[in-house]
Structure formats: C-alpha cells, structure tokens
C-alpha cells in the first residue's frame, strides 16, 4: 500500500485559524497526522518584557481572541499576587459575570463551528445570534466588541453602565432555552450524531498525561475544574455543577460545552443577585506598578481549560519574563493520537471539537 501525504492549511476553512496539518494516509485512513503550528506566533512574551505592567493588558487581549476576558483576568491575577493587591468585592463579582458571559460567547463559536464542520451550518447561525447578544453586552460595558482591555490589575476599568444588569438578566433568561433548541438542532440531528459519535476518542489517561484541560478533558470524564477544585475569586459562593462526558469523543466534547453554557447562566444569575454597590478598582494604586522581585503564577478556568500566567519581576516597572500557559496548546497536542485510524473527513471534526484558538496556541 502506498502512502499518500496530504497537506491541509495553513489557510483552510476548517482548521479554525492558521494551523497546518500534514496528514499521512493509507487509502483514506489516517496513519499519522502532524499539526504544524506557529503561523501566528507574534512574540507576545518578548513584547511584554519591554512594557509596563499596565501596558501588557492589551497584549493579553490578543492571545485568546475568542475569549479575551480570560487572558486579561489570568494576567491581572498574576500581577495582583506579585504586587499584593487586594481587589474590591464588587470588582470580583463583575469579573465573574463578564468571564462567564465570555464562556458563553466562546462556546458559541466552538459549538457553531462543530456544526459547520459536520455540514449543519444552520446551527452556526443560531449560535452566532446568541454570541452577538453577549458581544453587545460587552460593547455597552467597555466599547469594544472583541478586544476589551476591561479587567485591569486591581479591579476592572469601569463600573457597569446603567441598565446593564437588566439587559444581562434578559439575556440569561432566554439563553438556556435557546441552548436546548441548539442542542436539539445540532446534537439531536442524525447526520451530526453519525459524524461525531465515536470519532476522536480521548481516554482519561491520555487526557491527564497530555495535560489537556477544560471541556476536552472533562468530556473524557476527567473531573477537573479550577473553579471548583482550586477555587479563586468568589466562585466558592456559587452553586454550580461541572458537566462531564462519558466517552471522550467529539460528540461529548460538544455536549459538555452546551451544558457549560447553561451552568454559566446559573452562575451569572447568582452573581447578579449577590452584587453589592461598591468600588470597582482598588484605591491607592500607583500608576506605575513595580512589584518586589520574585515570581508568581496564577491560573483560571477559561473556556478552553486552565489558563495560567507566570510572571517574573526584577523590581522594575517592567516584567522580566511573562509566560502564558495556554490550554489550547496542550489540547491541540493530542490531535495525532485522536486522528489516527480515522478518515480524512473526520480530522476536520476532531480538530474542530478540540476548539483551538491559534492566537493562544502560538502566542
């Protein structure tokens, strides 16, 4: 049997960004698939070394551009830990609310593109309508549709505008039922089920060993969610459950995202109820932060998994080293294992179900 080598990407509609995959085929069966990344490597870690701590925040927006708030928050938590800043309670609640909204916006892309990959483009339209509602809320909040620069070291950049809470409540009231509709439309579809079920099975051992996290790991039954297991911010005050999958296939990865959106609505509802008036930014912070020498790491549960930022300070106003532990990078590294033995058309589905964002993979 002769081996065929097919190159996919780096500009291909189903690679969800600029990923190149070199696929070795035996007939139509994949014997080896090797992702080649780095087409969006912009050197953000190097750039951060020549900027002040506040000036790095806009750079973190461009990491995971589908979920900018997460990188903002993870970076700000590392700075706060390094500089010993206490964040006001209202700011913590606002951070939780915007990040759970961001989880919904991000998963809408992930679920929708799963639909587009399996030929059900209608679902993408439905999920994008939901995403636009979230984006509109963010636009009211900080004026930007994608790159928010909203979470800052010490709090958030500004308080919620008038009428925002009501609009947010309207959104979360309609979202769970819309999600059920999308779930029925996409994951109840016979064709989508046939394309997704049993495709790209990730065993729990591999999920742990390869360092995957977030919905990819949870779909394999790995019960690991930083919001619950390494609680940060005000998450211990909320009642929520962590959805888990059984089989670890593409179908479960999609379904886990659907249920995470519903859980996110529960968290937002509780956070809006508990929200008290107060400061949104720590008082008395110097304009030029210069933390004491040392290093700090902090991580949060982003839509893709545990997103960590490691900062080293040398006592000057600029970080000596910033490292972003990106969940999508680790999640993508299991692609060769998942794709082996499947057909070429399944590769598209598997890659889409891992939901990588290449701004974060390549940094």
């Amino acid at each position, binding site marked *: 049997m002769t081996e065929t080598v097919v190159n996919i990407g780096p500009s291909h509609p189903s690679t969800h960004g600029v990923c190149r995959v070199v696929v070795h085929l035996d007939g139509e069966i994949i014997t080896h698939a090797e992702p080649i*990344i*780095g087409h969006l*490597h912009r*050197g953000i*870690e*190097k750039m951060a070394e*020549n*900027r*002040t701590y506040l000036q790095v925040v806009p750079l973190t927006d461009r990491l995971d551009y589908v979920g900018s708030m997460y990188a903002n928050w993870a970076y700000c938590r590392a700075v706060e*830990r*390094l500089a010993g800043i206490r964040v006001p309670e209202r700011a913590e609640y606002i951070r939780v609310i915007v990040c759970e909204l961001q989880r919904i916006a991000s998963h809408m892309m992930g679920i929708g593109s799963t639909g587009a990959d399996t030929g059900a483009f209608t679902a993408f339209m439905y999920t994008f309508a939901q995403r636009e509602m979230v984006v509109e809320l963010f636009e009211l909040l900080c004026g930007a549709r994608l790159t928010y620069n909203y979470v800052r070291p010490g709090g958030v950049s500004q308080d919620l505008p008038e009428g925002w809470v009501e609009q947010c409540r309207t959104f979360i009231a309609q979202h769970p039922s819309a999600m059920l509709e999308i779930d029925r439309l996409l994951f109840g579809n016979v064709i989508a089920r046939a394309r997704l079920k049993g495709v790209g099975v990730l065993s729990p051992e*591999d999920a*742990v*060993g*390869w*360092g995957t996290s977030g919905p990819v790991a949870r779909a394999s039954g*790995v019960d*690991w969610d930083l919001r619950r*297991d*390494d609680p940060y911010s005000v998450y211990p005050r909320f009642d929520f459950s962590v959805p888990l999958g059984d089989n670890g296939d593409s179908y479960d990865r999609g379904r886990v995202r659907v249920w995470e959106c519903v859980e996110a609505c529960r968290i937002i509802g509780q956070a809006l109820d508990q929200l008290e008036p107060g400061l949104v930014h720590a008082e008395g912070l110097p304009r*030029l932060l210069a933390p004491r020498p*040392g*290093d*700090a*790491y902090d*991580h949060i549960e982003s839509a893709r998994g*545990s997103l*960590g930022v*490691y900062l*080293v300070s040398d006592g000057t*106003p600029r970080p*000596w*080293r910033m*490292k972003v*532990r990106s969940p999508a*990078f*680790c999640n993508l*590294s299991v692609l060769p294992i998942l794709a082996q033995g499947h057909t070429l058309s399944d590769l598209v589905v598997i890659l889409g179900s891992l939901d990588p964002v290449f701004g974060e993979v*390549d*940094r």
Partner: protein
Amino acid sequence: MKIEDLRAHLCETYPDLCPLFSIEFGDGVLGVSAKRLHEAASDLKELGFDRLGMVTAVDYGDEFEMVYRIQSRDMYAGIFLKARIKRDKPVIASVCDLWPAANWQEREVFDLFGIVFEGHPDLRRILLTDDWVGFPLRKDYEDDRIIRRPDYI
C-alpha cells in the same frame, strides 16, 4: 490538601527532597540541581502529581532557570520544580517519559531559548520556521528586524 500538609507528606516520603522545599507567594517551590531534576520529577510523579502544567525557562544572564509546574488531581495543589543550568551548556534531562505533555512544551522551550532536552523523542523547532537563526526569548537576542519601542514612561 493545604500546602503545609503537602510539605509534611513530601518530607515523610522523600526526606532528601525536604530541605529543598520552600513556600513563595503561597506556592510550593522545590529547587533541585539540574542533575537531580529527572529523579525528583519521577519521585513527585509517584507521589501523585500526574499532570505537568507548564514547562518554561527564565533567562538570568549567565544562568537559565528551568521552571516546571506540576499539578495533582488528588491533592488539588500545584508546585514548582526549579533547576538552574549554565548558559554555556544549556542541557537538561527531558521529562517526556514521565508526562507526555512535556513533548510540545519542551519543544517550545528549545525553540525560544535553545535549551537542549536530553532524551526528548522529537526535538525540533515548533513555533518558528525551521531555518530561524537564534533563540528569540534570550535576553541577548539580536535581530535587525526588531524595532525597539521608544520609552514613553
């Protein structure tokens, strides 16, 4: 499990690692020599640290500091494993055989810092092109394509 309990547990099981353990900013840090890194890592894995969160390096002039963040599902804690290596001989043992997650992460460190991991199955550049010259995240990296940012502050 709290970090103090983890320290007690670690000291009980591996007494030789105990004096190397310190707590900084609420995180446990285990500083070992480069020679003992692989041994300490496999000890930690046996202790239950089944996940490798992050591998990175920091450039401190004539030394590189290797930083590994290792997490445990059962203990709900993460600790750092740190080792220093000389700049003129940037070689350290790979931990790929313990955690496959190290595969891509060590390739990234090799790509950006030029640190060679002994025993790595597939040590190639990952983010930059294969013909790239130099290691960009080193502090002494020079490239005529870089435009330095004017100092506004």
